[in-house]
Structure formats: C-alpha cells, structure tokens
C-alpha cells in the first residue's frame, strides 16, 4: 500500500465524516517526485441529495481548476478517494469503470458507531 501522511489521512476521514450519510470524494496529492501522499483536498459531490448516499460525481471543471492550482504549488495528483457510507470498502462496477489506470484510489468505508464513526480505508489501482 502506498504511504499516506497523517495529515492527508486525517483530511480524508474528516471529509467522509462531514459528508455522512452522503458519499464524500476528493483528490490525493503528492509533492512532485515524492512517493507518499502528502495531502488531500475534498471536492464537492455534485449528485442530487437523494442519490448522494450511494453515488458521487465531481464537476470536471472544478478538477480542471484544482489541478492547475496544484501544479503551481508543486503538487502532482496521485489519485482520488471516496467514501462508502454504511457499506464495505470494495469498489463497485461503477467505481472500477471510472478508475484511470495507474492512479491510486482509496475507498473509505464509514459506519456510525456509538461514539462517532468507524472507518476502514482500502487502496485500489488498475493497470492496462
């Protein structure tokens, strides 16, 4: 599994908790040349509210702007993360269809627990 900084991990989990019971999503960043995920930026899930519990989608323009901004700051896009509220951290067919080969994808299963939330993070990647 790719290394992920404490900061990046905390940001991912925080955004999943805030979005619960909807799916959270965002981009994973690494400093150019690094092999560790240094940072994570949440993105807006544009799905309708009644659909967002089981689906996510990102405005491609938001990504376009974000990747230009991150380039100037010396970051590369390492991949993306999204959450599965109350559901296992395994990719659905739709998840797999939308994976860009070579990038890192984190799926975070998040379920309500007595004091807060339980999370499980799994990493996926496809090759062509």
């Amino acid at each position, binding site marked *: 599994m790719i290394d992920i900084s404490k900061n990046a991990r905390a940001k991912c989990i925080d955004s999943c908790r805030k979005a619960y019971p909807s*799916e959270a999503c965002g981009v994973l960043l690494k400093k150019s040349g690094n092999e560790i995920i240094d940072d994570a930026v949440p993105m807006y899930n544009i799905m309708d509210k009644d659909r967002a519990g089981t*689906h*996510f*989608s990102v405005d*491609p323009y938001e990504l376009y702007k974000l990747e230009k901004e991150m380039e100037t700051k010396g970051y*590369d896009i390492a991949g993306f993360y999204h959450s599965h509220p109350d559901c296992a951290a395994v990719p*659905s067919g739709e998840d797999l269809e939308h994976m*860009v080969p070579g990038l890192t994808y984190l799926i975070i299963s998040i379920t309500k627990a007595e004091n807060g939330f339980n999370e499980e993070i799994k990493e996926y990647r496809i090759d062509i």
Partner: protein
Amino acid sequence: MKVYISATLRNFFERNPVLEVPKSNIRDILTYLTDEYVESKKVLFDADGNLRSFVQIYAGDENWTDKEFWDKVLDDNTEILLLPAIAGGAPVESIIPDERRKSVSFDDAEVERFGRHLLLKDIGVKGQKRIKAARVVVVGAGALGSPVIQYLAAAGVGTIKVIDFDDVSLENLQSQVLHTSRDLKRPKVASAKDKVRNINRNINLEAENVKLEADNIVSEIDGYDIVIDCTDNYKARYLINDACVLCGIPLVFGAIYQFEGQVGIFNLNHGPCYRCQFPAPPEAGLVPTCSEGGAISPLPGIIGSIQANEALKLIIGIGEHLDGKLLVVDSLNLRNRIVKVKKNNNCPICGGHAVITKVEDFDYEEFCGLKEVEEEIPIEGFTPEELAKRIENGDQMTLVDVREPHERAIMRFPNAIVIPIGQLARRKNELNPEIDTIFICREGKRSILAINTLREAGYAGPMYNLKGGIEAMKDIIFSHEGAWL
C-alpha cells in the same frame, strides 16, 4: 487546435500538458492523438473501440464526450480539454432490510430444496433468507410473466403477487409457458396460482384478476419490495413506472418485440426512471404490440429470465445490475448491448420539479394516444356483422387490405384489393370515389391511419373502417371460407 491533457492522463501523453493538434473535429483529434501517442489508445478506448467511461472531452465549457458531437467542425480558438470523469457508486446492497431477513427461518425440507443456492458463497443462508422475506409484484402473467413467476417461485421468493386481467387463449400457448391447453379460457392468474402451488406450496401467491388503472395501482403495489413489469403496452408501462416512482419501489422493466428484447432497472435509489429514457410513447399505431407484431417463442423466456435474475440480485444484494442501464438483446443476430440511461432532471415524475404527484391526475389514455379522438371529420366504420351483411347483400364497394404481405399469408380477406399503407397516397387513383371503400387491417387501428393518410392526400370518396379488423371478423365469415393458410 490546442488540446489540454489533464494531469491525471498525462502519463499516456509523455507528460505533455498541452498538445497542438492540426485537426478540426473531435474524431480526427482523437485519431491523431492515439496515432502519435500509441500507448494512449488502449487507455482511452476499450476493446470494442468505445471511449472508456472515465474519459471526458470538453470543447470550451461544453461536454462533447458523446459521439454525436465528434464530427462537428470546431472553431480554431476552441480549447479542447481531455479530463477524467471522477465518479462512482456504492456496491449493491440488498433492498431487503436486515430485520426482515432475520425474522425468517428454514426447515429441513427448505435446506434441501434450496441447497444449490446455499452452496453459493454470494447467496448462502443470508441471501436465501432475503429471498424468502421478499415481496414481489409481477404485473402480467403472459409471455414475460411466465418465466418470471416460475423462476421467482422456484428460487423461493416468499410472497409473489401476480396481477393480470386476461384469460388464457390458444394463441398465448406459443410463448406463455405458464399456461397449458387445460387452462384455456381460465384467468391467467388462476393458472399462475396452480403452477406456483405445484412448485412450492409454501409460497404465498396473491392472484389479482384485475386491470391496473390509475385508481387502483398504488394500493396494489404499495408496501412491496420490487415491481416487475411484464406487460405488453405503453399505457401500462407508464402507469407502472409512475406508481413505482411515487411509492419509492424499484422497477425491473422488460419488453419484447419480434426478435428483440430489452431489460432495465428503473427507480432504484432515486435513479433514472422509465420516463427518463422514454419521455413519450411512439405515436399510437406506429409500433405494434407483441399481439400485433409477433415475437419468437423463446424470446420472452430469455428476457423474462434476465428480469427474474435481476430481481433476485437486488433482493440478495449482489453483482452488477442494470440500474441506469438498458440491456438490448438481439436474438436474431445474437448481439447484445448495454445502453446507458441518464437521469433526466426535467423528468415530470422523478426530476427536481416533478409535475406529476398523483397517478390519478395524469391522463394515460390521452398520453398514449388511446383516446377516441374527436376529430374534425370522425371516421365512420362498420362492425364485422354490418360488413358481413353488406357483403351478403352484394353491395357495391371496394375492400382494401392495408396489411403487410407476411400478414396476408396467414389469412386472406376474400375479394379485397391489397395496398400496403405506405403506398396508399400515391395509389389513391386505384380507388373509385363514387362507391364506398372499406379499409381492413389486423385490429382496426392501422386502417384508421390509412383513412387519415388518404384524407390528407386529398382523396374525397366515402371511406369506412372495419372495426376490430380482421381479428374481429374472422369468426363470422372465414369459418367456411377456407381462407386460413
């Protein structure tokens, strides 16, 4: 033309952020890029040459990913963006809540009966309990309903409600394997009930011998887990879809026509509905139903079996399914494809500003063109009895059969001249406007279309429709004519 490559896709384009491409439409640009950067071809396109789901193409701020835009000429200053589609969905969850699963149990006979399911890791005891706890409505106990009802019963679905208003007729036996010769003239739901009882007596089969209308559909389906549409007409499809959206019930849709069939899942977790894909039915009379257009015998077996399989997958909570997709099966050439169904935000029943809030408020008859339209010049017609009398009296008239050649091969109409509907306007001079002309088709609907076509073409002679068509008349005049094949 400048093409911006997203940072996420740059690895396949030698890390170039912007490429200058001397082409002026999307198709040529893609060909140029995949020729120049060979590695990108298998990343952007799948084995069938279709763009992969994660690729999006923007021209300026418009999404031009769809192939329909690929040949449009682009303005030189347009910036083309190659971006990834960042999207996904949760894996399938069972639509049966855990409390209901936990409230059922199995006896020894059931463990033996469902052994083949229990052996499957993806079904097991949990899955089989969900199947037993499930409550499914099947609308239509005909061609599609036959495999659906039998497989759901065999699989152990605890409660199956079958709704159908029709009786079994001889022509049903060509494809409706639920019924046998002994069931002729019985209600279809009665033979469905017998069949299911013979499969498994423990299944609670609710037989409803009623026709679904706007005033009864909600009470018939409310509280059930899934509705499976096995009907054969547009009015029923829209009515069922709308009621499912309003009751929040997922719908497994199926349809067959001649050699082709379709299956899809609508309204799952507020996903796209039937109206999102088919906003309006085709003009009345344009697309015949199966009872008019025919279908090859095993086709409903194929399509209905897929419907039953999809329903079971939703109940168990496994696999990939046809949510937001439509599977199109061509049984003649053995080619299948899956069409994506997008949610329509302006959908009148499931969109953001839905205007249909009760099925009672929507006129399905009018929407599907089934109302007797009050036309400026109403179309006059004869009943089969009236026409038979005129023929017997030797009245002077022209009989025109507008059916297609293969339909006439089944049954001729004696002494009728033959003009297929597409040729009517240009062959109108073959008709004598001084005497009555009677138009004949199979069910008396296309013949109305024929009369309207001729009126529009300026034909002024008296025209009449044979009400109910040759189907309604065959018992009167053909029994002794030997006109059958």
